[in-house]
């Protein structure tokens, strides 16, 4: 195996390990990789894309919902519930955690709390999206160099 591939693989392992250690990702992300195989080689990338699109939609909806003078908190809660679901499905642990807090504030009809959570969710989503893209890019590079992606954890 070439030095190039070995280096990339190490880089991948270091990076993915840090994401787990810092709590960005949880075990569900590994479960996703277990579903990827030769007959379904782009599964993780597709799921990440769907997560990105879905999250952007939900952030837009939440922003709109929280702008009204009278906030429909049941609507807000419904959106956050969806967000929690999708982040859970992909293993985006920190986004999921913000969603939990968000729901508490929505239940309590706490405007300030909700607005803070919205900010936080935007930040966390932006972070994880960037990290996932970087991780997937590393995977692509490894495969392009003729190597196999090492199993995480």
């Amino acid at each position, binding site marked *: 195996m070439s030095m190039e591939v070995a280096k990339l693989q190490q880089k991948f392992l270091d990076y993915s390990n840090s994401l787990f250690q810092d709590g960005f990702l949880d075990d569900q992300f590994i*479960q996703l990789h277990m*579903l990827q195989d030769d007959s379904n080689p782009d*599964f993780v990338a597709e799921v990440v894309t769907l997560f990105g699109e879905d999250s952007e939609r939900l952030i837009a909806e939440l922003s709109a919902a929280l702008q009204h003078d009278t906030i*429909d908190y*049941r609507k807000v809660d419904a959106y956050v519930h969806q967000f929690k*679901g999708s982040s*859970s499905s992909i293993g985006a642990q920190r986004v999921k955690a913000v969603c939990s807090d968000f729901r508490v504030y929505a239940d309590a009809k706490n405007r300030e709390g909700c607005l803070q959570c919205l900010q936080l969710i935007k930040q966390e989503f932006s972070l994880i999206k960037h990290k996932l893209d970087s991780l997937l890019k590393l995977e692509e590079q490894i495969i392009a160099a003729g190597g196999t992606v090492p199993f995480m954890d």
Partner: protein
Amino acid sequence: MASINEEFEVSKAFPPLEDLGRSGPCATMFLENSEVTSHTVTKSHQEAFVNPTSEVTEVHVLAVDDSVLDRKMIETLLRNSSYKVTTVDSGDKALEVLGIEGSLGLQFNISLIITDYCMPGMTGYDLLKRVKETSALKEIPVVIMSSENVPNRIQRCLEEGAKEFIMKPVKLTDVERLKLHISSPQMSCHVDQSSKLCNKRKFASEGCETQNTGRRTRPSGLTVVA
């Protein structure tokens, strides 16, 4: 009968969702850009005819979830466990596939329904009830998925006849366990669109593969097995 591996899309305008007046997030979910999404048959939907020489009986699962991400997940999980899969994004669409509502003129042999609980409009529980109330369909095992562990909810679903309540995110081990609920691989309910009668078909016993599920005694996550 549609040809093998043909993918088709059906779009329909659905009336605006009513608030059913129940508490909780399920009743107030909105589909604001409510273009109804397509119904895509993801695998060949040839009818499972009796074929005595066949070694494998394909099990056709209908998966219902309003989340596009979760639909992708459940579809892949099911396919990886060698099921034939049809995914739909609502209870209404599920009923169409099952032959209750609408006139898509499609005929499927559905051996199991797996549905999300929390969906706008018709919840998974509503769908479960409809299936159990319909004589042509009530034998089809129904499994409910949810991201929330609400004991009352679980209880209600099991009482209504759900075979199992699976906590999301769904794992491969959960999906493999579904085989247990398909009581007899030989039987599946075929709903004839025109007559709305259930013509149960028995496969020749020589043609059926006995599935060794490698049953696990310790459930993963928090699942309740009826």
